[in-house]
């Protein structure tokens, strides 16, 4: 009788033990929030990584870079994501040392609607700045016409379109314009939303692209991936070294490769206007934001494992989704940085 009972008890204990262990093992949920621009790639990574390590589940909210920075500063998420690096002031507000981990690069292209003109309109970067400053107002302005001898440009006012919502795309674009034109730096500056001297505001990539597509004689800027997917015409730009560069995955990666020599240890670097024969001038990193000292050892460990996977396997998936992968030497640097995360 007692024997039976004790055996039953043992069995019960075993079952309980197994169930508890199972629960502890079951799933580690890692929460993240931030940039919308890399969201398609990140969600691809998370679903592919679920096959590698089924015990980890990622929950990523693409609420925008500003929101990502706010949430990682408040420690309501395990990692943040941003298209703009944090300022010194913003870094001071964080409760611990926050590491920037560049994942991929994006580029911004200049798109336009000129009846009869396909892709490949040639624009000097200074001319782009003057168009957005409202100083070049006609399409047949000699400064544009001289670079495009084969194209008959119309005598029509240029309708400038920009993003109306705060966005990382605007941040990169205005950063680029600031690097090109001292007047832009003085009058407007760079930021996720700025005071535009001229033009109409469209909400989101689709808002800008919609206005450019449906309105003749417009010029706008959208993400490279968005322009490629929607087959928008885009301009070839003359970069700082005096070379005409067409926007592409390759020329975007080239911009980062050109920056390797002066890459700071915290990766807080803008990639616009990099020198080099084929460096596209409007490119930028997008970053994951992770605390160096992880609070939860389980989450910390899983996060580092994921980052290592992303730097090796994940990078290969980037081009298919129209993101520029990190150049190999940068990826090597980042691997070392990931090793410094403690948990």
């Amino acid at each position, binding site marked *: 009788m007692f024997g039976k009972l004790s055996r039953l008890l043992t069995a019960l204990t075993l079952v309980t033990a197994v169930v508890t262990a199972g629960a502890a093992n079951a799933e580690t949920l890692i929460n993240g929030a931030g940039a919308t621009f890399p969201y398609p790639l990140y969600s691809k990574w998370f679903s592919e990584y679920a096959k590698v390590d089924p015990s980890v589940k990622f929950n990523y909210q693409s609420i925008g870079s500003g929101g990502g920075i706010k949430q990682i500063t408040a420690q309501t998420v395990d990692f943040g994501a941003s298209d703009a690096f944090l300022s010194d002031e913003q870094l001071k507000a964080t409760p611990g040392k926050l590491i920037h981990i560049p994942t991929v690069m994006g580029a911004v292209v200049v798109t336009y609607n000129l009846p009869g003109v396909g892709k490949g309109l040639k624009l000097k970067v200074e001319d782009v700045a003057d168009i957005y400053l409202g100083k070049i107002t006609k399409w047949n302005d000699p400064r544009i016409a001289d670079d495009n001898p084969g194209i008959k440009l119309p005598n029509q006012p240029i309708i400038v379109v920009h993003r109306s919502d*705060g966005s990382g795309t605007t941040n990169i674009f205005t950063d680029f314009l600031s690097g090109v034109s001292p007047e832009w730096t003085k009058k407007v500056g760079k930021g996720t*939303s700025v*005071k535009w001297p001229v033009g109409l505001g469209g909400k989101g990539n689709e808002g800008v692209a919609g206005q450019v597509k449906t309105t003749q004689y417009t010029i706008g800027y959208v993400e490279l991936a968005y322009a490629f997917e929607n087959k928008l015409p885009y301009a070839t730009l003359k970069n700082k070294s005096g070379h005409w560069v067409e926007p592409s995955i390759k020329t975007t990666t080239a911009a980062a490769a050109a920056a390797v020599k002066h890459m700071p240890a915290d990766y807080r670097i803008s990639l616009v206007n990099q020198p080099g024969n084929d460096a596209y001038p409007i490119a930028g990193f997008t970053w994951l934001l992770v605390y160096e000292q992880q609070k939860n050892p389980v989450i910390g460990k899983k996060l580092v494992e994921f980052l290592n996977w992303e730097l090796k396997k994940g990078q290969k998936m980037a081009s298919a989704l129209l993101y520029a992968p990190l150049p190999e030497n940068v990826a090597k640097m980042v691997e070392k940085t990931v090793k410094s995360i403690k948990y």
Partner: protein
Amino acid sequence: MLQETDTRRWQIEKKLSGDFVFKGLTVVFAFTILAILLLMVEEMHRESLPALAKFGWRFVTGREWDAVQSSFGALPFIWGSVISSVLALFLATPLSVGTALFITEIAPQRFGGVVSALVELLAAIPSVIYGLWGVLVMAPWLQQSVEPFLSERLGFIPVFQGTPYGVSMLAAVFILMIMVVPIITAITREVLLTVPQSQKEAAVALGATRWEMIRMTVLPYGRSGILGAVILGLGRAIGETMAVTMVIGNTPQISLSLLSPAYTMPSVIANEFAEASSKLHSSALMEIGLILLVVTLIINILARLLLWGVSRQRGRTP
């Protein structure tokens, strides 16, 4: 006999307790709404304190909106919201009242039912669909046909001057008009249905034509109700965000011309709040929310006064 009184008393008591519970519940509900409103105001006020402290009244009169320089003024947004909503109502009211009159007084019953169902269908379309249609279909049409015509023929009036961009104040007014028509029409129709048949018959018996009957009995009877419908439409118009953002051009400027782009209060909040990284920027957007509330309140009070004036006037004329 005694038993019967007891039962009755019990029934009365039961009724009373039911009344008590009901009364209590309605009081709780009413105060919940009030509490939510007050909490919202308090929260927005607290969040907008930095902007209130820095700019004071200059925030309301300022025309500059520059997040990089942290210089904020809300006047272009207030202007855009008020003008677009008021003009939209100006166009929508005759259209809606006309439609409602057609449905209730003119059309054969069955056909009127079809028309009113179609109008209500318009109310069910999400605003983002209106916005997409606006930016992809209406704005190009405005840019290529309507606006060039206006600026060529009527360009001597400042209201129709300027380059036709398509996305403009005019586009916002049209979109809002289409969006408020179903609301005003539906309510006006209900109001007109309450006009007593006897009054209408009396007018006709006195030899009134159909138009005279509508003018003398139907419209005066429904006047305050129609005004109420217009106020509800105004509420919808001034708070509309998505569709307006997509067609108004999002340029913070004050221009007399309907052809130039503008900006509204809900639009700037929707556009910039998610990425407002500086404290002052998000605080300025919070203050815009507060101003939106105040502007809505002022318009509602004005409308109430108008309503009150109209009903008093009606009371005097027999």
